[in-house]
């Protein structure tokens, strides 16, 4: 048995989800390597990754073709590495992991398990289905197990003082069927939504984009991230990538504050794993009340500024 973790990085840092994926991988109980792919200089990221406790080796693949982690370009590399002797491949269920791993699975003629939340054994896993309304226990029958893991379900691996070995690997290709054109990333000083300790989310009840500043000010007081419901995103109050829910980000912070969010099934799927849930809503009967630990029935245009002041 040997496990390969697919690392992800942005702005020269491993993502929080990668550290969680390492924890999940180590729970499989096999020797674990981590693959860092990047443009011309990903070696600093590889050196950082080599500090993760429990890793056997860090594999570093550098080249312009890896720049934006296009699935078509990275799949040949991952497939060839896995074919050399890995039994398990683990990646964060981020947009990158979900994009790439199914392609690898098809190339190896094996199935894949998405969004694993619990590792029962080396071949048996739990994952939520039906918007988190059921938890399935699934046994993989394939010789190679491919999993994406839900970052919020696993603690982040700890760094330690000894670096493991960093080994250069080659492979991959510049696929002719796809070309990167551009990207637009939302710059934010706030912590990453998926790994933040506190998340403050607004819904349709915020009424406007301008009013979302009330959410941001409470989030900043708590050192938290800002989230949004689908209704808030669709109304243009917040950008797409802040959406929490079945089709957005899945979060499980210590504290989740939902302001002006009714609590549709699809939203609950993204946050009901939070440790403490606070709902601020004018409607005492809103479905969010069924999962909230603390429900404040109030006008959020009064409650949010008061909360900001009280913190």
């Amino acid at each position, binding site marked *: 048995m040997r496990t390969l973790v697919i690392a992800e990085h942005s702005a020269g840092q491993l993502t929080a989800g990668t550290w969680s994926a390492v924890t999940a991988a180590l729970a499989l109980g096999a020797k674990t390597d981590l693959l860092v792919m990047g443009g011309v200089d990903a070696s600093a990221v590889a050196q950082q990754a080599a500090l993760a406790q429990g890793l056997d080796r860090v594999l570093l693949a550098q080249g312009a073709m890896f720049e*934006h982690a*296009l*699935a*078509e370009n990275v799949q040949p590399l991952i497939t060839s590495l896995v074919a050399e002797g890995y039994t398990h491949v683990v990646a964060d269920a981020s*947009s990158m992991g979900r*994009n790439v791993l*199914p*392609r690898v699975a*098809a190339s190896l*003629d*094996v*199935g*894949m*398990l*998405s*969004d694993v939340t619990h590792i029962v054994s080396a071949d048996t896993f739990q994952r*939520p*289905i*039906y*918007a988190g*309304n*059921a*938890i*399935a*226990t*699934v*046994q*993989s*029958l394939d010789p190679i197990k491919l999993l994406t893991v839900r970052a919020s379900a696993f603690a982040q691996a700890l760094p330690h003082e000894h670096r493991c070995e960093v080994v250069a690997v080659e492979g991959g290709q510049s*696929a002719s*069927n*796809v*070309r990167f*054109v*551009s*990207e*637009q*990333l*939302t710059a934010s000083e706030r912590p990453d939504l998926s790994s933040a300790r*506190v998340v403050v989310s607004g819904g349709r009840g915020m009424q406007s984009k301008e009013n979302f500043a009330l959410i941001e000010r409470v989030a900043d007081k*708590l050192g938290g991230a800002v989230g949004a419901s*689908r209704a808030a995103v669709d109304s243009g109050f917040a*950008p*797409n*990538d802040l959406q929490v829910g*079945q*089709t957005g980000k899945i979060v499980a912070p210590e504290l989740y504050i939902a302001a002006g969010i009714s609590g549709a*099934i699809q939203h609950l799927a993204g946050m009901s794993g939070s440790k403490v*849930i*606070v709902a601020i809503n004018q409607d005492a009967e809103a479905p969010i*009340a069924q999962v909230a*630990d*603390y*429900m*404040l*029935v109030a006008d959020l245009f009064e*409650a949010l500024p008061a*909360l900001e002041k*009280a*913190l």
Partner: protein
Amino acid sequence: MKVLVAVKRAIDPNVKVRVKADGSDVELNGVKMALNPFCEIAVEEAIRLKEKGLASEVVVVSVGTSAAQEQLRTALALGADRALLVETNALLEPLNVAKYLSKVIDQEQPQLILFGKQAIDQENNQVGQMVAQLIGSGQATYASAVNQVDGQWVVEREVDGGSQVVALAMPAVVTCDLRLNQPRYASLPNIMKAKKKPLEIIAADTLGASVKEHARLLGVVPPAVRKAGINVGSVAELVDKLKNVAGVI
């Protein structure tokens, strides 16, 4: 040019599912089924491409039991030209579905294959990517805009932290995100017309796909129940509880 759209019959998104008493699976008997919402977005996109003159024919395909004919008729009522059902009673494992679909793609030779980004029942988010690999085409997952420029599909993707644009050679696989469009409703005349549109049934085992069992469902349990919360009367009381009882701030 031909656009193929893969669609799935799934539980209606507004239904609250229940786990069966014996823990073998969720209860689907007598439960309202529908076209998976992301597939609906894919169908809508194909029809819009046809309305813009960028597609000449929209073919919808589903893999599943004969009951999926209902969802194919829905897609036909929305504006698709014809439908194919790859009929099987087997459990729909993503790789097997992808293999059946890639055989259909070989026969149909579409220039664009549209998928929903995920089905809301099993939430795998895999089939589109697997098909792209099997047929050797480029993929754009989580699409929020699809355009055609100089003989390529230019697709904006929703990714963590923002958006990305990629250009794909034809044929290409695109999986649709929520923000791509707002699906239309089928009108009664179109529902009537859809009954006369061609719907071909293909027995799955005639496609020559090498399918096998990759995973076994051992059981299903409901998620842990959260203990009932309390109402707080004021912001001051809320802050006090968060500080002194929950200890999270």
